[in-house]
């Protein structure tokens, strides 16, 4: 199978969908000739034209609302926000409008839109361009939340998101855009709410999201040398969450480390940990559930400080050893 990048997988999924369905269009800042801040839509305006690859003024609230309104009336918009930090400006349209319309209208009408946006740190862009705010949207009923970690997952999950009749927030990770994996050429769908076991193991489960999936896999390699067998679970979607796969794994291993890049305090890891504690897996736990996440500060500019803000491979190795009392 051919390998393509995470970034190309996003573009391919959108292009294939747009060829199939005239109702699908993209809107966002600089997505036309510029090709988007990270180059995701590069070349798309040549194929689909400026009506369907619609360059917008810098006005996140306006364009998010336009996406909601067009979705409610029969289009299937994909909104690109340049950085996930700017979701704050679109928040009213997303949280008070998109998420609630169907419910408030008693099931009349639907809002089939996808809000795609790059998140995460590691680019030195400092506090206003590096956040991971997925827990904010995951908290809001009515929104689905996707966080893919590989090119293969991106393509399948984005198709599922575009086919979904609900508003979906699709978080891409800036540092993963250049990573590659085997991706089929034909369209395929990965159901939202289906976790992936990225590595099987028996001693401890790591539940990791986005870039942390890769760091967890690296940590697992390191730990294997010490004879520790690690299972790595990537939920892929936070809402809906595949509780079953996580509970089954933790029941098997008896130990769990939950790791994400977002600030630990109030982060989605707390939700996963509570879910495990409330489940039958609780009876199998041989150690307290451990959570790793970002420090309780904004993301600093200095590269070394920035790195120390978020969990690194060695932090994950250490946390796993601690749950095994082998630190």
């Amino acid at each position, binding site marked *: 199978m051919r390998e393509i990048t995470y970034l190309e997988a996003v573009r391919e999924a959108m292009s294939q969908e747009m060829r199939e369905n005239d109702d699908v269009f993209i809107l966002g800042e600089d997505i036309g000739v510029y090709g988007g801040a990270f180059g995701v839509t590069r070349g798309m305006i040549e194929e689909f034209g400026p009506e369907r690859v619609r*360059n917008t003024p810098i006005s996140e609230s306006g364009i998010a609302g336009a996406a909601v309104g067009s979705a409610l009336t029969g289009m299937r918009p994909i909104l690109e926000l340049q950085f996930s*930090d700017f979701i704050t400006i679109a928040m009213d349209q997303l949280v008070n409008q998109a998420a609630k319309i169907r419910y408030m209208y008693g099931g009349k009408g639907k809002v089939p839109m996808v809000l795609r946006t790059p998140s995460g740190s590691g680019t030195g862009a*400092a*506090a206003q*361009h590096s956040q991971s705010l997925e827990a904010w949207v995951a908290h809001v009923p009515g929104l689905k939340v996707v966080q893919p970690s590989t090119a293969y997952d991106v393509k399948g999950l984005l198709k599922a998101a575009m086919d979904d009749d609900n508003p979906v927030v699709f978080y891409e990770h800036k540092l993963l855009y250049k990573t590659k994996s085997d991706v089929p050429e034909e369209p395929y769908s990965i159901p939202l709410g289906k976790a992936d076991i990225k590595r099987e193991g028996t001693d401890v489960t790591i539940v990791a999201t986005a870039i942390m999936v890769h760091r967890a896999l690296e940590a697992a390699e390191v730990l294997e040398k010490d004879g520790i067998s690690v299972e790595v679970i990537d939920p892929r979607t936070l809402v809906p969450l595949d509780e079953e796969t996580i509970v089954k794994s933790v029941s098997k291993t008896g130990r769990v480390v939950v790791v994400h890049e977002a600030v630990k305090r109030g982060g989605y890891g707390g939700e996963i940990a509570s879910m495990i504690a409330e489940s039958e897996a609780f009876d199998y736990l041989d150690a307290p559930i451990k959570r790793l996440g970002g420090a309780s500060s*904004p993301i*600093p500019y*200095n590269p070394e400080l920035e790195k*120390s803000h978020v969990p690194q491979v060695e932090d994950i190795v250490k946390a796993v050893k601690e749950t095994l009392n082998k630190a």
Partner: protein
Amino acid sequence: MVSLTVPEQITEDKLKDLLREMWTIRYFDEKVDEFFAKGMIHGTTHLAVGQEASASGACAVLQDKDKITSTHRGHGHCIAKGAEVNKMMAELFGRTTGYCKGKGGSMHIADVEKGNLGANGIVGGGIPLAVGSALTSYMKKAGYVTLCFFGDGASNEGSFHEALNLASVWNLPVVFICENNQYGMSGPVKEMVNVPDIATRSEAYGFPGVVADGNDVIDMMNVTNEAVERARNGEGPTLIEAKTYRWKGHSKSDAKKYRTREEEKEWRAKDAIKRFKEILVDEAILTEDEAETIRTQAKRAVEDAVDFAKEGPMPTKDDLLTDVYA
């Protein structure tokens, strides 16, 4: 020989300082460009090469107590409000000797004590802050004016419209300066704004809007001076649109496919620094030699800033959690 029409507080020495300042801004951003390309400065930066006149002209008529808010393209505003280039460069190098102790970087340089309320990574983010600053001045009868810089792109954000309306209904001492450099990132102003002049948007909020030549530091001084005086006299806000151009791309990875070489050349010919220097020489305020000395001094100051920056210590892990709360 025509005598220059400038605000009365602008002395000949001040004019010379302004030339130095504009060159400092130019050399600072060109140095940043060079170091960015070499990987010695990381993250992202937005350069204001070509836009020196709007920052310098506008800030020239301010008093020390006055305040500014700035943007992601803020090095020029910062220098024009009196910042030390040493501390600015140290910030870009991520050192503890920088304005933000290495935590803020290019997009967040601030010097609150000196009235620079900060650059801003959020387009349109600073505009309401300027209104708040003006509100303080009004409520405390502090007598200062707040100058609010932002781009043409930012004038499409809701924050712009909400801020202008508030400033108007509260009759606040604030001057809004839209630096119309013809593009948002890649969005040409002609496609993103459906009126010929952004300045006319003030009409919707009931206060004056003025178009200025953003590449003419003298025009910028005069227009801003009038607006600042209005604000100081309790006559409320003004919106100034400075028509200008950014010579470089939006940020590091910009192929500039959205504009032509001819257009770039046309605007480079309107170089604000060259123009100002020629006026000063024509008016016999400076000789060519003196101008050259000022230019080399500005260049030297930027070189020195690099040395200062390199010597500064890096923050340590202990610094991660400091300054989160007061």
